[in-house]
Structures are given as C-alpha cells and as structure tokens.
C-alpha cells in the first residue's frame, strides 16, 4: 500500500519518476487548495489524442484527500472497440473515516471515452460516533439543519460522458455505535447516446452491522444511502433513471434519549429490520462495458434452484433436501438480480457477515471476468 500511494502522489517530480504513470498531471498551483471548500474535491478526466487519459482538474481540501494513478494496464479483449486505459482515483480521508460533522463532497467528470476506477484504499469507511453536543436537544425531534450539523455526510457526483466507464467497487461502510451518516451518490449519463456509445457504470454500495469484534450489531443511529442515476440530454433536461435508497434508522433513539440502561435493554430497530443479515448491499450495472456481466448475473440468478423444491434424487432427510443453493454458491448469501427499466441490472444482497459477502461477490465478478478484463485486477481490490 505505501508503494501504491507514493506512485499516485500528485507532486510533479514524483510523477516523472513513477515508471507506470504516463498521465499528464496539471501543474499544481500552490494556491489551488484555497479554491476548494473543506471536504470538497473535484476531478476531471479527459482523453487527449491519440488516446492519453489526462486529468485536467484535480483539487481537494482537508479532510478529503484525492490521489490518482494510471497503472500500465491496457484492456485487451474489451467489449467495446478502442478502450482507453483506466485511471484510478483513491478517495482518502484523514484518519481513515468520517467524524460527526464531516462533509465530503467529490465531483468527478469523465469526459467521453475515459475510464475510471474509484476505490477506497483505506479499507472500509468508518463512521465515527456522533458526540452529544447538547443533551437537551435530544428530546425534541431534530430539525433537518440540526440533523446535518452533527451527522457525517459524503456526496459523490459523477458525470459520465458517452463511451466513458466508471467502475466503483469500494469497501463497505462500517457505521460505529450511535453514529449518524448520510451518503448521496449521483451519476449522470449522457442521455443522447444509444447502443455501444452509452456511458457505462458499475457501482457497489454496501453497509455492515458495525465492528463485530466489539460486538456491534446494527447499533448505529442512522445510515442513509442514496444512489441516483440521471440521464441528461443535449438540451440539458434531466430525467431520473434509477434511484436506490436505503434508510436504516433506529427510530426508537428519538423516543428514548441517551440512557445506558435503557439502551442496552431495548432491541435495535435496525437489527430487527435487517435480520438475519450482517451486511446488506446493492450493485448497479449499466452500459456496454458491463452488458456481459449483467447478463451473467441475471442468468446466475434465474438459474438458482427453486426455493421449496424437493431434491427427489437424493436420499437426504426432508430438511436437507429443501435445497437452497448447493451449486458452489454460498449458503449464507441471499440475493436477487433484476433487469429493471432502461437496461439497468440491479443486484441486491444480504449476507451473514462482511467476509461472506466479499467472497461471494468477488468470486462472481472474477468468474465472469469483465471487470478484470476492462479495468485490471486492481479494480477488484476491495473484493
């Protein structure tokens, strides 16, 4: 990991020495960081002729840090003609997590034909506990403004041009006990294109029950994750194509103010609503680069054994013969895949724990091979 980080440093001198890095970094102004607001970051990726991925903008400000790197990987057997080399963007925060009140806002523009892999090299996004600044306010239903002030928030908005592709397979969010967090990810596609000229995206969003080593089991107060995909046509009109929104809210927290004894006694509402899973997540797939993967997952889903079917050929006991998923699939992952509107494939899953989900998804994506073929093995870093 240290090696990887030094390669991706945006300092021009290191740039030249990094053997596998050929993207032309913009010359950094020493005053540039004063342009961005705290926690804000902006990245623009363009393809300069003949086919050189170039970052034309890269700014960020504390507590956010953005690093980029272009490994030597060139897609060989791509689903589309003349694919460009993927550029990696690493989202980092100081301390490796989000504190209450931290607002991260990253805006990425992928110009036509570019490819980007966004990842979280620090591992899971740790959401730290919300500190109680004013205990009295707890009793009232909090206003939106108050809600935001002591909440961590992460926004990511990505504009994906025609034939451009985004691969975003991060580590899961790990919300600590009593934390409050909101994540809004918006992806805007070029709506004027069709067929192989469409933008492509692969986005994973998952959340775990917390630090299991400390016995946390969905003990946070609020985790809200929203993923939206919009299309924008030439006139600039936007249309919502897909919205995936999950709200895990311990509503009883509002009713019972912070009180150790009561807290321990009552059952977390989130635990009840996610039972029996220790991790839940969503994978969103769209566009020509991920068409094969989409079909593969749809096929894999529909060919799962029927639930409640009896395995007449085996002599197993009736309880065992109620087949669930014997053929190599993990027994502990419950998932569904659906071809929803406008050509999107949406995969939803729930698993016993993070490791189970990670192996299940990693195995599926490696077996099918599109992600590795189009973006390199490193795109599956978190899986």
């Amino acid at each position, binding site marked *: 990991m240290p090696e990887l980080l030094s390669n991706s440093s945006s300092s021009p001198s290191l740039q030249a020495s990094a053997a596998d890095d050929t993207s032309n970094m913009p010359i950094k102004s020493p005053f540039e960081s004063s342009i961005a607001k705290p926690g804000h970051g902006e990245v623009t990726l363009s393809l300069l002729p003949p086919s050189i991925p170039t970052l034309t903008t890269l700014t960020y400000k504390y507590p956010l840090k953005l690093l980029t790197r272009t490994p030597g990987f060139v897609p060989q057997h791509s689903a589309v003609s003349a694919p460009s080399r993927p550029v990696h963007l690493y989202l980092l925060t100081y301390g490796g997590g989000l504190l209450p009140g931290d607002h991260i806002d990253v805006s990425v523009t992928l110009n036509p034909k570019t490819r980007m892999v966004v990842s979280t090299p620090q591992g899971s996004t740790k959401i730290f506990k919300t500190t109680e600044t004013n205990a009295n306010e707890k009793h009232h*239903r909090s206003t939106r403004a108050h809600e935001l002030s002591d909440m961590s928030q992460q926004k990511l908005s990505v504009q994906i041009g025609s034939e451009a592709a985004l691969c975003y397979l991060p580590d899961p969010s790990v919300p600590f006990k009593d934390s409050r967090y909101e994540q809004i990810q918006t992806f805007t596609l070029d709506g004027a294109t069709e067929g192989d000229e469409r933008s492509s995206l692969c986005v994973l969003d998952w959340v775990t029950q917390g630090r299991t080593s400390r016995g946390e089991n969905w003990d946070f107060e609020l985790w*809200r994750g*929203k993923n939206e995909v919009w299309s924008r046509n030439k006139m600039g009109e936007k*249309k*919502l*194509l*897909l*919205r*995936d*929104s*999950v*709200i*895990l*809210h311990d*509503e009883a927290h509002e009713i019972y103010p912070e009180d150790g004894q009561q807290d321990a006694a009552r059952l977390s509402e989130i635990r*009840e*609503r*996610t*039972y*029996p*899973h220790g991790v*839940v997540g*969503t994978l969103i797939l769209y566009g020509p680069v991920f068409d094969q993967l989409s079909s593969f997952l749809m096929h894999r889903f*529909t060919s*799962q*054994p*029927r*639930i*409640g*079917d009896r395995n007449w050929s085996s002599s197993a006991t009736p*309880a065992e013969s*109620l087949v669930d998923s014997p053929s190599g699939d993990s027994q502990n992952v*419950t*998932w*569904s*895949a*659906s*071809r*929803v*509107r*406008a*050509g999107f494939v*949406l995969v*939803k*899953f*729930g698993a016993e724990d993070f490791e189970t989900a990670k192996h299940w998804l990693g195995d599926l994506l490696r077996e099918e091979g599109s992600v590795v073929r189009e973006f390199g093995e490193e795109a599956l870093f978190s899986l």
Partner: protein
Amino acid sequence: MNQKTNIQDITKEISDLESRLQDAKARLAAANGPKEKHDPWPHMQNGYLEKGKDILSTPIHALLLLSDSALPLGSFAYSNGLESFLAHNKPLTRSITPLASFRRFLKLSIASIASTSLPYILAAYRHPEQLETLDNDMDASTPCIVAQRASVAQGRALLSVWERSFRWTYASKSDDGITATACKSLDAFSDGIKSTIGTADDIGPKGHFPVLWGVVCLVMGVDIQQVAYIFMVNHAKAVLSAAVRASVMGPYQAQSFLASKELQDMIMERIDREWDTDVTDAGQVVPPLDLWVGRHELLYSRIFNS
C-alpha cells in the same frame, strides 16, 4: 332542471373548496412548528359524525368505494412478499410460532410500504400536476421487476376504474381548482399510457399504484389524511387476506388483527413519520423485503403474483 344542476355545481364547488382548505390548513400546520397527530377522521367526534354535518357533504361515499375489497384492482393476486417470506423462513425454529413470524412480517411490511409509497401518495395529492414526473420517479425507485409489475398492474386497474366507473360522477365540473387540475392530469396521463409501446427499455408513463391512488382520491374529494390511512389499511387487508389464503391463520384471526388497536397505532405512527418526507427521501427501511419480493420468482410453487 337548470336550477338543480346549478345547486349540484355549487355543492360540488363547496366540497371542493373545503377539501382544499383542509389540505392547505394541514400543510400550514405541518410547516408551522410541532407536529400534531394527523387525524384521519376530521369530521368525526368520538367516532361519530359531527352534529350538523350532512353525511353527503363528507366524502364517506367515496371512502366506502375506495376501501371496498370488491374494488376491481386485483389486489388479491399479490401477497406483497409474504409468500416468499414464508418460504425463506422455513422451517421455523421451535420457539417461533407461525403467528409470531407473521406478526413480524406485517410490522416490517407496513413500515416498508409507508417509507416507499406514502411520500409519493402525499406528493401526488398535493401536486397532481406532477403526476407524470412522480410516476417516473416511482418507477425509477422500484428495485425489482416483481414489485414493479404488482404496482403497475394495480395502478392501471385503478385508472381503468376511474375512467370507466367513477369519472362520470366525480369528474370536476369546474375548470379551475386543484381537483380540475387533477382530473386533467389523469386524462393526459391515461392518453400517455395508451400511446406508449411497452418495450422493456421504455421509460414512458407506467401507472404506479401509489401515485394514481393519490390523484384519484383527490378528485373524489377524500381528505389527504384519509387517503393515506385507507391506503395503509388496504395494504394491511391485502397482506392479511394473503395470510388467510396461505394458511397462516384463519379468517377470524385475520379480522382481529385488522381490528386491533395495535394495527391502527402502527399505521398512524407510520403516517405521522412520513407526512413531511419528500419523495427524494423516500426509501427502503427493510432491505430484506426487497430480497424476498425479488426472489418470489424463484419459488417452486406460487399462489400469488408477488
């Protein structure tokens, strides 16, 4: 004759204005500080109609029509994930009775339908002119094809009932006002559905049930609190009726569930919670429910469509 229609028009207009006034008051109350309980029966005092209130000036007739299980929406064909839930939670451990398991499902189902659908119902009622956008956004927010088919089938059935049966009586005679807007928007929407070719990638108007429910109820003069309440009760009825047919419980037990104070309180609590939720903040609060509904297609034997 002429005078008679005049009187009808005026009565219509008065009830129209009254419902708008109530809606505006409700919105004002919502905007102004502390939330009060949203009484679904504003005309009632202690369970009885207010003295002096004519039964015809309240939308009771429309309410009875809309809450009737004989309303031809085909809701009986959907278990809203119950059938799949039962299959996924089999066999039950000894400590959990089928009834306890069902009670859990009902609670989750009500919380989930409220967080995903109520914001759309309320938005459609408050802004009927945005019917098409709301329908598009609801379609975009429906995570699986099983749930999408169920919602669209019932929504289109409601639209047909409106056009073929209710329109003649309830269509607004005046040219302005929110109900007239709602009526126009229903007509335009219906035309839109008929003129789209239903290909898989098509993102034209679909006809989602919650959105159309909000607008049709508005035109029929039902109060916004009641619109939300009846939707939730109808949902509970559908789940309970599915439970009876899936042999989870008997019909008397199902009725006692329906009649219970627990269910009423649960519904009121969910309505209160979602009253001011913007449609952009609607979302799934019970993630496994999406999995159960999505995996309904994988059941070996099915008696329901969802």
